């Protein structure tokens, strides 16, 4: 436990521990007028143009979707407790795993970090008053709501059983509500495009003086890279789904083999979006982890430019590898070879990030607050997820592992162990800023621990099941798989419990939490320079833009119970005057 304090700090008083910083009692710098109480009433939220409020509404939305998707996940795992029918029929099981996948992917993971956290954090971190197009931002939120409504309609109109991938010819022949679901995803796609577009323009045109490209926090680089994918890949999904809807209703014969269409071409169309989309899901997570690792190691991020460039590289390489989802779909060997080769290239920038995070922690003063606990489990889980991806990118092993539980486990390690854990880390990190309330750090850490253990309990057995030949999306299995399936199901319910603990910790803080200081973690990025919660216009005074990772220039201030920047033009001290305690 270490924290940097200026030497002119009152000698008699013990140096504050971060825990003390985390539970201040009514800091004097608490802004009375903030974005939450700036205007009142339901309408002031529903028609707000404030990116912070839109971010909060997104947060509520994506968390509700997460709850719904999570319930379906638990139903899926409950059904798999025994071979054959346990609680539902095979047809219902198909609907459960489809809805779990579709809701989690389209309604939760894709908008979770960019639209919920990104919306709140991005402009403040950048030092801007708002995003470039506030009305478009609100429109994008309502598009999300529209998409969610279509999903709800799908639930009540015969549901959906195609898997979230909508592969033809099954999606053109099943009797479930495919077109309704397609409409929902189409609308959600435009919500995502508008969010990405807004962020790119914001980063390009709204940077305050002094905020140069290479002074941007790495979270912004990650969101920027994500936005590029959102703008360039999502429209292909939109047109694919449109064509599929037209195919299903009229039979245009471009995807449906019944009219001479090519179902493999559909997979090309679908994965041209959906592979880059997995980077929409994970890249913002990378950004969060870069912030957390640096802040809670009390150390400047290692290899700043490499991490920044690797985000862009991942975004671009991500467009070149979609074919690796189709190695066993009847794709030609030529294309399979090309895509396999390209797939390995994308692992390089991801590995660069992991190495840089480890190097950042090396010799740092690691502070195991809740967000850091999530960040550390991210590194562990994502690395497993990433490395097992190499098995699937290799042509020969993929033939054996394709469409098995190995794949299921691999992408859950990346999507849950990666994206979700990073999202939770970010949520716990920015929660004091968003709500102005401190949560109970101890119980936060407990939740991180449960999530980490339960996650591994759920998904590690699935690697074993997969290598032994358990196919994904199956309702039934041979009896010798039952042990691992039951371990996995127990883990899933524990994971649900861990997430419930996290939810209780956060909700409890809203009711009973102490007021949060402006900078409880001692981070150097701009969002911690404004009060918690931020005022309506983000900054009362223009922020001082500096190195976002100069953590040696952030010191604890006992008067405000908060960290603050050392201003080199005042008497607050200089980096040379700071001492490690």
């Amino acid at each position, binding site marked *: 436990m270490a924290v940097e304090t200026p030497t002119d700090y009152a000698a008699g008083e013990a140096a504050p521990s971060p825990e003390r910083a985390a539970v201040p009692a009514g800091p004097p710098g608490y802004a009375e007028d903030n974005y939450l109480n700036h205007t009142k009433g339901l309408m002031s939220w529903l028609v707000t143009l404030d990116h912070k409020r839109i971010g909060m509404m997104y947060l509520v939305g994506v968390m509700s979707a997460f709850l719904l998707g999570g319930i379906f996940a638990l139903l899926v795992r409950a059904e798999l407790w025994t071979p054959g029918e346990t609680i539902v029929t095979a047809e219902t099981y198909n609907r459960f795993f489809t809805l779990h996948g579709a809701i989690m992917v389209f309604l939760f993971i894709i908008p979770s970090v960019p639209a919920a956290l990104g919306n709140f954090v991005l402009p403040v971190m950048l030092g801007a008053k708002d995003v470039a197009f506030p009305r478009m931002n609100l429109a994008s939120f309502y598009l999300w709501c529209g998409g969610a409504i279509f999903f709800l309609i799908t639930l009540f109109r015969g549901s959906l059983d195609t898997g979230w991938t909508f592969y033809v010819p099954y999606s053109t022949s099943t009797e479930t509500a495919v077109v309704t679901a397609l409409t929902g995803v189409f609308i959600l796609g435009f919500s995502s495009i508008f969010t990405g577009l807004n962020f790119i323009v914001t980063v390009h*045109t709204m940077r305050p003086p002094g905020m140069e490209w290479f002074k941007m926090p790495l979270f912004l680089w990650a969101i920027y890279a994500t936005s590029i994918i959102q703008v360039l890949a999502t*429209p292909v999904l939109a047109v694919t789904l449109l064509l599929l809807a037209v195919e299903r209703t*009229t039979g*245009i*014969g471009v995807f*449906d083999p019944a009219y001479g*269409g090519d179902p493999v071409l559909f997979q090309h169309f679908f994965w041209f979006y959906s592979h880059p989309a997995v980077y929409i899901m994970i890249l913002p997570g990378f950004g969060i982890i870069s912030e957390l690792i640096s802040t809670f190691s009390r150390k400047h991020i290692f290899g700043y430019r490499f991490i920044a460039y690797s985000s862009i590289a991942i975004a671009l390489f991500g467009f070149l590898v979609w074919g690796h989802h189709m190695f066993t779909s009847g794709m030609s060997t030529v294309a399979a070879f090309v895509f396999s080769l390209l797939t390995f290239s994308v692992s390089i920038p991801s590995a660069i990030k992991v190495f840089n995070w480890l190097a950042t922690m090396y010799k740092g003063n690691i502070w195991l607050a809740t967000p850091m606990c999530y960040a550390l489990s991210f590194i562990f889980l994502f690395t497993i997820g990433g490395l097992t991806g190499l098995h699937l990118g290799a042509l020969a092993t993929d033939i054996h592992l394709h469409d098995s539980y190995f794949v299921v486990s691999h992408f859950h390690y990346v999507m849950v162990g990666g994206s979700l854990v990073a999202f939770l880390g970010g949520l716990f990190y920015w929660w004091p800023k968003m709500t102005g309330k401190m949560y109970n750090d101890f119980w936060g850490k407990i939740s991180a621990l449960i999530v980490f253990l339960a996650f591994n309990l759920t998904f590690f057995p699935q690697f074993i099941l997969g290598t032994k030949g358990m196919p994904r999306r199956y309702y039934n299995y041979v009896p010798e798989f039952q042990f691992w399936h039951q371990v996995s199901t127990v883990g899933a319910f524990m994971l649900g419990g861990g997430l419930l603990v996290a939810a209780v910790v956060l909700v409890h803080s809203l009711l009973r939490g102490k007021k949060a200081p402006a900078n409880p973690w001692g981070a150097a990025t701009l969002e911690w320079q404004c009060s918690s919660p931020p005022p309506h216009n983000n900054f009362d005074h223009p922020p001082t833009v500096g190195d976002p990772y100069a953590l040696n220039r952030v010191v604890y201030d006992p008067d405000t119970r908060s960290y603050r920047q050392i201003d080199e033009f005042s008497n607050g001290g200089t980096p040379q005057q700071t001492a490690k305690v």
Partner: protein
Amino acid sequence: MSAAAPAPPTGESGLDPDRSHHSEHGDADGHGEHAHVHDPHSPHGHAHHFESWRQQFDAGKLGMWLFLAQEVLFFSGLFCLYAVYRSLHPEVWEYADRFLSVPHGAFNTAVLLFSSLTMAWGVRCAMLGQRIGLTGCIAATLFCAALFLGVKSFEYTEKAHLHILWAGATEEPVMGGTRYDTPLVDVTDQVAEAEASSLTFAERESAALEATDVTLGKISVGCAIVALVLMVGAGLCWKLKANGWMVGLAAGVLCAIGMLVGAEGSMLLAHEMHGDHAGGEHHDGEAHDGHVETAHEMLEAESDVEIPPDGIGQFFSIYYVMTGLHAVHILAGMVVLTWLMIRAYRGDFTPDYFGPVDFVGLYWHLVDLVWIYLFPLLYLIG
């Protein structure tokens, strides 16, 4: 004349009655804070989170270009379909494009190019603060858009009467697995009947043309009625000094007349192509009559003997999807242009604030760009 020309030269605004009229209007109404009255010198004119007009314009422009990039990728799916199926079945493409009328396509190309010109001219007018010029340019663009759709409606109607539709509409599924056992639009009997009744293709085409004439006649009457009603409405609004409504209704009149002229003009063009081969003059003045005749003669000579290849429905699926989605973009553009025309007439745009005109212009040019590729791909290459 660089992009960063710092300020309007002195005396420029004095030469421009529209602009001075506008600023008087703004002052007289005392709506200094009103979002639509943009005094270039007011520090509060631009949106609060921007520092300057310039920043707001640049942000909007960048946003629009990103939106266009998104549109390019959106259309890319269709171009990909085209490329894949063309490379797989070149014989279908060679056979099928004879059913598309080059003169109609070429005329539509010219119409869209002209609408791009008027749009670009409109942006120029907006930048110079010429209110009436801007309104006129937008009106011309809108009229061209309607003209384009009129021609398109002729083409679709004619094909429908010839039973040239997408795959699922006319073909039996070649294998199981689909939800439909029979074609959606059951024209099998009619097609078989037509084929059995020893009519040559040219005769069937003339019959279809007659039927098209009837259908389009009804559409034209509808357009004329709509135009009349809207015209009366616009007149009323003019009397009531409801200028916004008046311009909106006038835009509707333009659209209805444009549709009518486009549909009837295409009909004339088609009759001319089918009827009198000697008279090679078309009302649109396009300079490729000689070729038109050749293509048509070729069609007549061949259609009786050549057996249509399998998968012709797929070509028309792609044709309908591509042109249909393009037409949807035209329609969306018309809605936005109407909104723009109302604002332009009202005098919302000044040399400092003309972003919306520029951005809608960019969108309109992109729709034109897509057509620039669609025309040769579908109509010409065979």
